[in-house]
Each structure stands twice: as C-alpha cells, then as structure tokens.
C-alpha cells in the first residue's frame, strides 16, 4: 500500500495544526488574538476572544487551559506559551467596547427561551440568541449573575468587578432577568409556553462525607462542605475559621478552600489527598499557588473518622495508604491523627435536579445526570436542553461556554423548524501572508526567550486583604516577550506540488528538519526515511502528490514546525507559501447565515 496523498481541502487537516485552537472547547483563535495584542489592538484582541469564549476577562484568570498542554511551543522548548495569561492581558488592556457588542434587535422574532441558572452556560445561550431576536428569560435563585463563577471562585483569583463587567455585558443585550427566583418546577416552567428551556444550573452541591463522627458533638458546625462554605465566604456570611484547618480532597476546589481558609485566619492549613502527588486533580499552577501560601499537602491518606472529644471536633483520623505504581490499588498500612479545629470537605460536586419532574419526558441516568446528546445538548425531551456542569457533571467554565454555543444553535434550529442534528460546518479560509519577497504579514522569527513568570502579590498583603487579586499583571516587557513566543501555528505551510523543481532548498533551510522528499511507500517506510525521524509522534504526515520531475513525494512532519516561513522564502517557484488558516466555529448567528430557513 502506498501512502495516501493528504487531502488539504478538508479544513480539519490544517485545523489540527493549530494545536491550541483545536484543543480549546470554544475553539478560540489564539494565534490571531496574540498577534492583535502585539499590534496594540487590545479591543480587537478582546472582541476576537469574546466571539468564541464570551468571558475573556474571567477565563483569562480561571480557565483550566486545555490549550496550554497542547501548545506546540511546549514541544519546541520547555514551556507552552502563556496563552491564558495573554487572554487576561487582552481583557485588562481593552478599552470600552460596549458599543461594539451585539444587542437584541428592536423587533423580536417572537420566540421565547427560558434559561435556568445565570452561570456561564446560560449566559452564553443568551449571548448567542438575544441578537437573533429571541426573548431570553434567565432565572436564578441568587441575586446576581455568574453562578459558580461568583459563589465558588474566590475573589482573590477572580475580582468581582471583572465578573460584574462581563456578565453585565450579556444581560445588557436585552435579557429578561429574574434574579432571586429559583425555578421550583420544570413542568411549571414549560407550562408558561416557552419554545425552549435551557438548563444551565450547574452542579451546585458539594459532596458530603458520611464517615463516623460526622454528626457527633459540634462536628456539624465545624465540618464544612466546600461549595456552600465558599459561597458563604463570597457573600460575606462567613468571615473566620479556626487556626488549624484540614481540607479533604485535592482538586481545584480544595485549593480554593485551603487558600480561602488561610485568609480567614487558618495559619496551619493541610490539604489531605488519597493518591500520590503525580495523580492530583488540581491544575499544577493552582497547586503551586497553594504551596506558595504555606499550605501543607499530605498525600496518600484517606479519612477514616472525625475525632470528637468532649463534644468538640479535635481532628481527623487518617488511614495511611500504600499505592501500587499506577495508583490504582492501595492498602492501609497504618493510621494517624491529624488535629483540626475546622474541616472543609472538597471531595467532589453533585448535580441536583429536585425541581425536574421525572414524568415529563426528561430521562436521567442512574448517576442522577440527565441523558444529553453531547453534540446538540438536547435532552430526551425535544424542547429542553442542558449545558455546563448540569449536562455532564463538573467541568471547567470554558466547557460551559462551548455547551452554550451548541445549545443556542440547537434552540435556533428548533425554532426555525430545522432538525437539531443539522450542524453548521466550520468556516475555513486560507490566505497567503506574503507581503513582498521574503516579507510576511506576521513576525516569523523564532525568539528563544522562556515563558514569562506571572508576578504575584506578596504573601503579607494576600493574607491581610481577603479580596486582593493574587496574580499581578505582566509588565509591558513581559507581554512583548510572551507574544513573541507564539509560533503562529495558524500560518500554514501550503505546498503546490506541480511547481516543485526538487532543488532541496526547503529541506536544507528548515531549522527543524521537518521536510523530506522521498519515494512513495507505506507509512512505515516513509517514516523511516524522514530527515528527522519523529520521536514517538504518531501525528499523521503531510504527503503531497507525485512531484513533476521524479514522481517522488514531499513529506512534512508537522510536529515541530515553527512556522518560520524559511521554506517558502528559499523556494524558487513559490511551491511553498505561508497561508493563514482563518477557522471559525459557528455560533447560532453564523449557522443562520449559512443555511437560511
């Protein structure tokens, strides 16, 4: 068998090269917004972000960053581009863009949509549907928009003003807001005649831990459940905690709990984890921030019971665990007592839908989660859609945004009589970036500078002021260096085989050895003949059709390409060109433009 010529007319081929955009659930056009920052066009950088992820200022601080492990820069030198941090740069330096945001038209389209919960998923649905003329009514039991972004992300990570600004921008489009009005019956809501209901009510319940001693003495008052406790702090009801605090669990919520406890007076805070450190669920940078604040991490321990003496909680008895290499099986090798004045449980979150009647056509899994189509976000009842943590359990904010976009497309389809399964294709264009001979519209040089470290507020100030944001801005010099680290992976190497004279110039000049001209063969044979054999990469190779002079093929291994454009500069016949892939994953508005009903 001979290697198949690569079909570059499929947008997925070049899209995969843009690792960050491919990895982002909302498909944010990362390289382009980084270039816009480089040009000082912060408003445009912000708006470009907003098109796909709706909350650049919030996500620039809180995102789980699936883009960064994917970033090619992380394979080229030690660390990926600080993509998330640059998103915050765009948000922080952006001016007033209010008059450039979409608004609901004066004439509405007559369709009514209800959104349950005012978190990121519901707000995204509103953001996408309001400009199309939908009447969107948002219900939320609390008094402000934001959902878990407001109640469980501490202000020292996400300042309230940022949250207020970005949620208000959506509401100002013309949403009908019903705060302080929790929905108590789905049947009742549906009876109001909405064309569609979107459930974005999150996974609002922290899991409890029913082990011996949980309700003994004053344990009920000293053992706190993460989300309720964080919300109580966020809304000012809780202002103190004991000196010695134990946090059970080692996810990002546990980090938020431990760091919050540290600020409320806990000066001896310990996070207890069941599994070894390499298997922690917390993002490495959030773990590091906690460690920097003096929080102790005790791993390979499992809580056995709460110890209550004389009616008072005195600590937690822990089983000491020994794990096998893959941390699948453990055995108890001892027990120990960890003294504590207060304990915070951060062992997971649960979905809760006590307000959804089980006999109205919405099916649930045994786990308590609804049955939801992962593409259309539709439930088993055609006019009810789910998104965010309410759909598949706790995930990061950016997933809630992605769900919101998809649900908005589905709702718009349904209201227009288009099957929800009809999904608009991504729009892709490829545009040469050639300005003149050996001149490109993007900065093509490779800057070997390392990833810029985020400056932090000093520890004394962090503990003195509960709401002071811990991470400081990049300096202008840091911004300049960090944007130069981006490899412009959206600027693709485009090859026209009919022009190739096989002079080898591109192969000679390539700094990473990613090009090869060789005889056609099986995939294994071609891989064995590459200029630089790929180190364990299983990425598909680009393979051209037969070259005119010898019938050999041009092969490119995309893995380490730094998009410097030297191949195109050294090509005598312009068989190589550098062309920017502009890839837009459609929202409801674009879907409508693509296929008018």
């Amino acid at each position, binding site marked *: 068998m001979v290697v198949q010529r690569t079909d570059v007319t499929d947008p997925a081929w070049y899209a995969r090269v843009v690792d960050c955009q491919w990895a982002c659930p909302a498909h944010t056009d990362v390289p382009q917004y980084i270039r816009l920052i480089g040009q000082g066009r912060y408003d445009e950088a912000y708006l470009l972000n907003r098109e796909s992820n709706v909350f650049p200022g919030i996500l620039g601080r809180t995102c789980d960053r699936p883009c960064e492990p994917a970033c090619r820069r992380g394979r080229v030198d030690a660390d990926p581009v600080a993509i998330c941090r640059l998103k915050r740069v765009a948000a922080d330096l952006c001016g007033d863009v209010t008059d450039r945001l979409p608004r609901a038209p004066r004439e509405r389209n007559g369709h009514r949509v209800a959104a349950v919960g005012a978190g990121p998923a519901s707000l995204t649905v509103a953001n996408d549907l309001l400009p199309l003329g939908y009447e969107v009514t948002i219900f939320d039991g609390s008094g402000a928009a934001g959902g878990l972004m407001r109640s469980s992300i501490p202000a020292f990570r996400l300042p309230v003003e940022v949250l207020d600004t970005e949620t208000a921008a959506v509401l100002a489009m013309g949403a009908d807001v019903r705060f302080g009005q929790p929905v108590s019956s789905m049947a009742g809501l549906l009876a109001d005649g909405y064309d569609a209901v979107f459930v974005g009510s999150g996974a609002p319940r922290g899991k409890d831990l029913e082990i011996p001693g949980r309700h003994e003495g004053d344990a009920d008052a000293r053992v706190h459940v993460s989300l309720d406790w964080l919300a109580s702090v966020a809304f000012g009801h809780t202002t103190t905690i004991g000196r010695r605090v134990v946090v059970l669990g080692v996810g990002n919520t546990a980090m938020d709990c431990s760091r919050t406890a540290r600020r409320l007076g806990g000066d001896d805070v310990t996070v207890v984890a069941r599994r070894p450190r390499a298997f922690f669920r917390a993002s490495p940078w959030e773990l590091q921030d906690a460690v920097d604040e003096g929080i102790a991490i005790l791993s390979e321990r499992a809580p056995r019971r709460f110890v209550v003496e004389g009616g008072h909680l005195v600590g937690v008895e822990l089983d000491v665990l020994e794990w096998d290499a893959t941390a699948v099986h453990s055995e108890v090798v001892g027990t120990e007592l960890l003294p504590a004045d207060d304990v915070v449980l951060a062992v997971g979150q649960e979905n809760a839908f006590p307000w959804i009647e089980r006999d109205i056509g919405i099916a649930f899994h045994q786990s308590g989660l609804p049955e939801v189509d992962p593409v259309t976000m539709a439930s088993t009842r055609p006019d009810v859609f789910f998104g965010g943590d309410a759909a598949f359990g706790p995930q990061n904010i950016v997933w809630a945004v992605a769900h919101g976009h998809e649900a908005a497309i589905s709702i718009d389809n349904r209201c227009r009589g288009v099957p929800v399964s009809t999904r608009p294709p991504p729009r892709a264009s490829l545009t040469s970036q050639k300005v003149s001979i050996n001149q490109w519209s993007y900065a093509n040089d490779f800057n070997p500078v390392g990833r810029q470290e985020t400056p932090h507020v000093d520890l004394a100030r962090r503990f003195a002021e509960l709401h002071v944001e811990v991470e400081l801005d990049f300096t202008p010099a840091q911004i300049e260096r960090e944007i130069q680290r981006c490899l412009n992976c959206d600027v693709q190497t485009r090859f026209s085989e009919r022009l190739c004279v096989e*002079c080898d110039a591109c192969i*000679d000049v390539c700094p990473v050895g990613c090009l090869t001209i060789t005889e056609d063969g099986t995939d294994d044979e071609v891989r064995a003949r590459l200029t630089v054999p790929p180190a364990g990469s299983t990425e598909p190779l680009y393979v051209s059709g037969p070259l005119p002079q010898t019938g050999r093929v041009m092969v490119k291994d995309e893995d380490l390409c730094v998009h410097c454009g030297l191949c195109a500069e*050294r090509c005598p016949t312009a068989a190589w060109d550098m062309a920017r892939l502009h890839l837009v994953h459609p929202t409801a508005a674009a879907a409508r433009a693509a296929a008018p009903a």
Partner: protein
Amino acid sequence: MPSITKPLIPAVRRERNALGLTIRDYEGPMSTLCAGCGHDSTTAALVQALWQSNLEPHRVVKLSGIGCSSKTPTYFLRSAHGFNSVHGRMAPIATGANAANRDLLYLGISGDGDALSIGLGHLCHAVRRNVRMVYLIENNGVYGLTKGQFSPTADLGSLSHRGEHNLVPPIDPMLLGLSLGATFLARGFSGDKAHLVPILEAALAHRGFALVDVISPCVQFNNHAASTKSYAATRAHELHVTDLAVPHAPVTATIPTEGAVDVPMPGGGSVRLRALPADYDPTDRRSVSAFLHEHAGRGEVPTGLLFLDESVPDMHERSGSSRVPLNQLAFDELCPGADALDALQAAYR
C-alpha cells in the same frame, strides 16, 4: 536573502559526530544567493560531508575566487579559515598555502567561469602538481552573476535564457583532468544529495588533488526549458556511472559489496566504489576517457567517482618539502642566515 537567520530550535534532536559537534556547527551565515540556487544545495551537501568526516572546522581552509560559487564558502563552516582571492586565482593561493602548511585541509570552491575561463591555467597546474586539496566546481553552464552569458561549460547548441544559441564547444572538466593526470575525478548533481555526499566525503579523504564537478543549476538564468543544465534536464540525462559509500561514516546510500572495489584512504577507512557498467574500470585512465567521450557525445551526464588513483605522490612528497608547517619552524631553521644563502648560491656556480 531570507528575512531571518535559520534559528536554533531547542527541541530538535541533533546527532553528534566523533568530535561531539552537531551538523549546525558546520553551517555558516544565511546564503544571499537566489532562492533555489543549486549552490545552496551543494553547500548543504558539503556541510553534511564535513560533519560526517569528523573534520575539525578550524583545521579547514576555505578558498575561492569570484562568482556566485565563490560566495558560497561564507555559507558553511563559520569557524574555518578562509581566503577569497581575485578572479580565477584560487588554485595558486591554495598551492601556496598548502606549500607553507600541509597540516590543514584545503577546500577550494569555484565555478565554471572562475575555474575554466579566467582560472583555467592555474587549475591545470594545480592538477599537475597534485596539490592535496578539494577543488569543487559548481557548474551551471552560465555566468549568473553577470546576468546569464554562456560559460565555458555551456553545451553546444544549448540556448541562453534570451534564446541565443551557444556556438562554442564546452570544456569537460573531467576529460580535462584525465588528460592532465588528475588523481581523483568525480561528478555529482546538487539535486541528488544521497549520491553527492559520499563523493564529497571521498574527495575530502583523497591524498592528492580531488577535482569534483557538481552540476548545480542556476535557477535564474539556466533553468529554462531549453537549458541543458536545469534541474529537469540533469535529472533526465544523469547517468550514475558509479555509486560509492564511505563505510566509516553514516551514509544514506547502501552499496552491496558484490562487484565493488575498496580503495583504502590515507585518513583511515576506505572508499567502496561500485562500478555500474560491468566493464567500467575507474582506475584505468584510457578507458574512462573513452567512456566519457562516448557518453558526452550522447548528451548524457555521467556522474559518480569517475576516476581514482591513490598511488601518485602529492606535491610535498614529490618535492621533499618541509613536513612541519613553516609557521611552526624556529626562526633560524626557516631563515638559516647569509652564510647558508652564500653556500646555496655557490652550489649553483
């Protein structure tokens, strides 16, 4: 020239040779030649051959004259010695340098104009003396630097880029070398590195004067449809006469041992030479000459290591000159004084 310098990318795995150097240590600044110039590919092949031959960059002397070809020593081996001479005079400069210091490796880069027009006389005498050096002709059949006039290797009847016919027969540097008693004659093609790199490695290992003719297309002035030294025409008419491998170094060409001739080289190791036509004997000057005449007549371009003779003494061995480089001799040895001069002159009376 390119907008940027070829960057060093940390993650690229780079093999090291016996000296602990990577191939990037054998490169130079960015080329200012036209994009797609054959000379740049020849440079890349040289970089590969020098790296594989484990040559210390500071033990190499790069020499050249004038022309596009003569610019190329800048683009490789940035830490070697270099001498850019006047037009055509590279060979005598190399001869002189070699006479003064036989410990260094002399690598001359010339073009079809520099070597076979203005520098032809000098080339002939360097061949005759068997000066130990590599003399590489980047041969594109055209004066590229002066906008495309015919050079002495332009084939009879071939067309210039403006459509004029060449009316003067070409000089074939291989036949010229054979007639002058050259000891190493090889021809390669810049567009075929798998074949060219072992030729260059063998040339670097040769004990005398190694003349290497590299067909190196001029993309600007001699790569058109009626050109006989374009990429397409060379590919169509190239005839691999011999394949070879330098077994001590990693090479891309794999040569079967059956029917092969191993020639030991002074630097250690040997060159394995496989003659493709059954009756081709790369050590027989007369039959090689006949072979080249016959194939040149058919418009074919025979490539490979065409002729090799490791038995002929080089310039120093013939003249019995100093084994120690002159700059390492003590002053009184180098300049024995007026009495010694008087004695020498008296001997001639």
